[in-house]
């Protein structure tokens, strides 16, 4: 870790005021940033602590919820409204990390986790285009069991590690940001940027911009949703594949479907074409199998993660069948 200064912001305006360029970073709980600093990947010389800001979970006039960026993951997962109206979000959070980390981690920080890869973390010994654009990617041809099969590129195959963001993607959450240029709102499904040949850029946030809250649209009546995570041990492991799914069934037909995938892409992967293929069809296995195939049609695998294509399809089908069963 390089030498740095630490200061605590008293408000989001104060935090923005203190942020004076690339060498400064906002610090949430630090569950990812401090890790990256210890590894020498992130090298800020000025940390502006924003924990304690933006703490509330508030109902909005349109029936939705606004979650402060500083709310802990545990508080979101435990919130009675979220458990009742956005169950996939609560479940996704509880499937992530450990209780200790969830108690610390903030909503804003969770969204902003860097994509994960052991070669990205090996500053001394491995090449990584995210750290040093253009130097090459050692994950390709190396160990890539954890890596992505959708939305990846020749320069980066890392996956986004968040469980929470997969559920936020399912619920079409909107991220509210403050910065020098004022405030703006970005749908989470537009927030993340695919690696292409600039894998060092992971999202639309500009330097100095701060996530202040996340909005959840009003819940839809009769919508059933859940989250299922598959990993290499029972807890404290990143998803190999995870699925946030939802269905609304009326008169024996699906009228609304949601599928967002984790563990397979550089961002929460919303399978919109697959969703569209379900709508209007009966909620039966054949419908879901067809959708799962559509969702993974563009998968590009590495030797270490070939199994993810089939696994993701199976989990999509199982999740939707569960939801369809619940609805009947």
């Amino acid at each position, binding site marked *: *870790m*390089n*030498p740095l200064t630490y200061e605590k912001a008293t408000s989001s305006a104060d935090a923005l005021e203190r942020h004076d360029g690339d060498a400064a970073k906002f610090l949430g709980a630090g569950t990812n940033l401090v890790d990256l600093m210890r590894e*020498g990947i992130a090298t800020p010389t000025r940390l502006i602590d924003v924990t304690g800001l933006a703490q509330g979970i508030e109902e909005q006039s349109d029936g939705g919820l606004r979650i402060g960026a500083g709310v802990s993951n545990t508080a979101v997962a435990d919130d009675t409204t979220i458990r009742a109206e956005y169950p996939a979000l609560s479940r996704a959070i509880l499937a992530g990390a450990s209780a200790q980390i969830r108690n610390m981690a903030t909503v804003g920080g969770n969204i902003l986790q860097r994509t994960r890869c*052991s*070669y990205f*973390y*090996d500053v*001394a*010994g*491995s090449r990584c285009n995210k750290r040093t654009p253009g130097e090459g990617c*050692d994950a390709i*041809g*190396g*160990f890539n069991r954890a890596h992505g099969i959708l939305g990846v590129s020749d320069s980066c195959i890392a996956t986004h590690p968040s469980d929470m963001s997969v559920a936020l993607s399912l619920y079409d959450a909107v991220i509210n940001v403050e910065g020098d240029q004022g405030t703006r709102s970005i749908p989470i499904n537009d927030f993340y940027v695919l690696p292409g040949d600039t894998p060092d850029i992971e999202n639309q946030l500009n330097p100095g911009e701060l996530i202040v809250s996340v909005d959840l649209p009003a819940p839809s009546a009769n919508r059933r949703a859940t989250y299922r995570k*598959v990993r*290499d*041990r*029972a*807890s*404290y*492991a990143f998803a*190999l*594949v995870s699925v946030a799914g939802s269905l609304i069934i009326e008169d024996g037909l699906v009228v609304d479907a949601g599928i967002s995938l984790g563990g397979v892409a550089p961002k929460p992967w919303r399978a919109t074409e697959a969703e569209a293929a379900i709508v209007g069809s009966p909620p039966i296995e054949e419908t879901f199998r067809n959708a799962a195939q559509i969702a993974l049609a563009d998968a590009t695998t590495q030797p270490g993660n070939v*199994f993810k294509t*089939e*696994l993701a399809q*199976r*989990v999509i089908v*199982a999740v939707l069948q569960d939801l369809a069963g619940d609805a009947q």
Partner: protein
Amino acid sequence: MTNIKPNSSSHKSDPNRRQVLAGSAAVAAIGAFGLPVGAQTTAAPAASGAFASLGVPHIRRDGAEKARGGAKFAAEYSYPGMVYGALVYSTIARGTITSLETAEAEAAPGVVLVMTHENAPRLERPEPFYSSPTGMAGSSTPVMQDAEVLWNGQPVAVVLASTQEEADHAATLINVAYEEAEAVTSFDVAAESAQTSFYAGRDLLIEEGDAETALADAEVSIDLSFNTPAHNHNQIEPHAVTVLWQDGILRMHDCSQGVDLSAITIAKVFGISPAEVHLSAEYVGGGFGGKTVWQYHILAAAASQLADRPVRMSLTREGVFRICGARAPTRQRVALGSDREGRLTSLIHTGTTMKIENNSMTEPFFEQSEHMYRADNMHLEIRAGTMDMLANTFMRAPGAATGTFTLEVALDELAERLAIDPIELRVRNEPEVNPTTGRAHSQRALVDAYREGARRFGWIPRSGQRQGYREGEWQVGTGMAAAYYPYKRFPGGAARITLNGEGGALIETAAADMGMGTTTATAAVASERLGIPYDAIEVRHGDNTLPGALIAAASQQTAAIGASLTAAHEVLLAELASLVPATSPLHGLPAAELGTAEGALYSLADPQQQIPLVDLVALSESGTVSAEAQGGPISEWTQDWSMHSTGAVFTEVRVNSVTGEIRVPRITAIYDCGKILNSKLAESQFRGGIIMALGMTLMEGASFDERNGRVMNPSFGSYYMPTHLDVPHIDVGWTDIPDPQAPTGARGIGEIGMSGPAAAIANAIYDATGKRARDLPIRLDALM
């Protein structure tokens, strides 16, 4: 009355014995065990009340200090002027350092010293295991003596600074350039030139009869291949040492498994006398075979000498992965031939493993196959290739951990082919005497362990048909396997007993307590041997100035301590005899006719004739009576008997039919390890081994990138081990039959838990799914 002589019938019976045992669920069930009556009665301790020590579940003596945070580990000692060390590791597998840019690091805040091969003191090569009787190093690779790089992760620079943070930061400022040489980092390439290897002084080749022909001629045969990966050590305490050169003595607070051997090995590197090294390790946060001598010790001491400052060198988790040894990968073949009744006509267990050039440690994965089953023909052989990698080394149950996996899966497959229950197949091949040496078993009740395990687990006998069933998405199955680990006792054990004037005793021995409860067990053994209450026994250990050169390895330290105490007790009896006043009926009796019990010296011939020990101690000039001796010859296992621990492991496994996820909801294991000295410690040791084996089976493995020899998962975040949620209820029990040939009757329990579960789980997976998994770790994609 005599003290603890296993299988002697002269023990005083203790009416409280059952009640004591009833407190331990695991032991209580032994009551229904159907063991020979003699086995039950001889298990009773020699003394009663405050004197009852063996078999009593004393809590760990170090437990409270650790819970309070009061136990001081190697990285928690401080000295005035102490500086902190950080290491820079190589990023190539083989080659030469062409330049080291250190100026920026040297100018960084707080930096006291940057040491490289260019300014390091001249040092001898460390002596690795088996290169001398005292070799304790993982390899003989020179420590920062030249520009040559021999593995990816080798230390190439040391930074000392006023704080750990400053040292860590400065280490990142050092730029190293290399000229890479061709490295062997591919298992396949190295295997091409693998040679039949040796381990612990013998060739890893045993041939009896013509196993290949017998296999070809067998009425039923199977021929299987297995792969197991490298495993890195992950003790909860990362390796650390605090070093001080003072008054001609190199003082080291270490986390060693063998303080004397570490001190001697380090002394030789610095060309000083072992008496000039004072190395202690009172508390060690886990060892498992990895807390030996690695480069960090030597680099810390060398840098401390160069900087003339005390140094604390506490490795990061990545540092442990880069420099502190790993279990070698293996590729194994197990082929079994039998007649239709399951009698083995051929047992072939061969394969290839990897080692480094500068050590003599070949993973001995065929050892259980030597000793577990009779077979008319055998071919056991291990070839070792040489790779440019981190030194391979000992890791809990070396050999047996992966060797029992492959052998016991093969037996399960053979049982299925024969349509014989897997327990029955094993019983039919249970050897009367050791199958390869012909020696008699000192004690062996494996069949009882199978029967008791089957009863407690609810084993459903099978004859070629899977018993697995389905519960929703989950496929459920059961499996079993045998466990194995050899008895050993190394030379070098010694102990000093000092009786004080208050009726207590001090036991001093240079043994290590890595968290398994050495001091607790030693106090109990001493209490029984001396006839002094457990609570009046103090144990000092973990310091090379104490008697003996013990090592906590190969599950043998307790036996070594027991033998040392027996020998020291004999000397003590002579000392006490010399103090007996002329007026006493005991006067003139030789030591051989005396014993100690219940705080007194007494006549073996007439136990009513006794003198309180405190009275004798009061007669001594110094106010204490002290005796020191080395443990007796180790011929019981090297020449005389077949001494091996065994066990039976049963598991239930659930495999998700959608995802392939594997869960293990239930494990039962019954061990035959001789006398169990402390049921609480034993349960913990067995369970710990089983949990470690669970990790090896389902998730553990070094991601060794064969392109450059670099381990790519050097952290808890990416090197998976079981979490609490992965660990099921584990029911453990034991036969508790003292081994008449082992000191204290105990054969050692530290490692056997690591053998057995892998095969039992793999066999249960087959029972659940019909899929055979022969490569570790068994992960979900293998079962989808």
